[in-house]
């Protein structure tokens, strides 16, 4: 009884709650669905991180992480991805205020930084393969190329997606469906940066620290 009285005394909210306000707008539904996809993608990365952590000592007499990794390159890669995440955020602001020039500028800087990241990563892979540290060499290198390569593949797809989105902005303008896709793109790009924080910590910093 007391509980019922207490509930009655809670002041009623003047506005209808979400369940009485009808279906959520499409922007929320689309972004929430994409959010679920991103979380499942992160679960997949968790499996790759787990296999890397298990296999990191299994070098089979081959080169170890401390011999292969160059921290200078990793620091530049990290800076590129972090700043591109920031410019992607600024691009989202330009999109919300329907500023075409700002959108193109943000996309251009984001693309350039993402491409710089990818170039450095591919050069690092090429250098490793040139000295015989191929994925076939040891279980450690298989896990390394799978984890870091999968992240690099995501960045590549993100760059292609960004080009496609800029073409859509140019052709269709800021219509609702293009804005929904741009919101999904910025979620994707920020999520990639979160995964990279895990990669540079687990693979590059923990791998080389004494």
């Amino acid at each position: 009884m007391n509980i019922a009285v207490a509930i009655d005394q809670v002041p009623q909210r003047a506005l209808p709650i979400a369940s009485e306000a009808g279906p959520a707008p499409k922007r929320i539904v689309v972004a929430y669905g994409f959010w679920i996809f991103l979380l499942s993608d992160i679960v997949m990365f968790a499996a790759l991180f787990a296999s890397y952590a298990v296999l990191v000592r299994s070098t089979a007499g081959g080169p170890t992480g401390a011999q292969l990794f160059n921290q200078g390159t990793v620091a530049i890669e990290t800076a590129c991805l972090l700043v591109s995440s920031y410019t992607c955020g600024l691009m989202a602001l330009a999109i919300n205020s329907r500023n075409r020039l700002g959108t193109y500028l943000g996309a251009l800087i984001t693309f350039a930084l993402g491409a710089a990241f990818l170039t450095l990563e591919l050069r690092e892979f090429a250098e490793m393969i040139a000295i015989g540290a191929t994925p076939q060499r040891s279980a450690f290198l298989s896990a390394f190329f799978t984890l870091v390569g999968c992240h690099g593949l995501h960045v590549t797809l993100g760059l292609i997606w960004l080009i496609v989105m800029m073409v859509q902005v140019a052709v269709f303008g800021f219509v609702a469906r293009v804005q929904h896709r741009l919101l999904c793109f910025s979620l994707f790009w920020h999520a990639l940066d979160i995964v990279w924080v895990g990669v540079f910590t687990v693979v590059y910093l923990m791998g080389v620290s004494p």
Partner: protein
Amino acid sequence: MTEALHERAPGDRPSREIQPSAPSEFLVYTIGLFVAILLTATSFWAANTTLLWPGGVFLGLAVLAIAQMGIHLVFFLHITTGPESTNNVLALAFGVLIVFVVVAGTMWIVADMNANMMMPSGEPMSMRMQH
């Protein structure tokens, strides 16, 4: 306006018409960038310094990484504790749970199996692995 009581899309900021006290969005991204740079620089410093006890560096790097992921979620993805963000936070919490189960479970099980692996000579693998 019923909009204010709807859930908010992940990545969207609260609208300033509805919530005039919300800080400028440009400021939010810029603060996030600077905190992330600070945490990244600390990580790289901690991995290379000889000032710290090596046993603690591993834990310190893990804490810095998790802190930076939190910064990205709050300042770049705009995940908040507000009621309009509940769905996003619940999905995120479930994702974090699965990530934890996969990573910690794999490492625990495989380390256990490795320790119990019997070598042909009859002694556990873990004895042989010690150099």
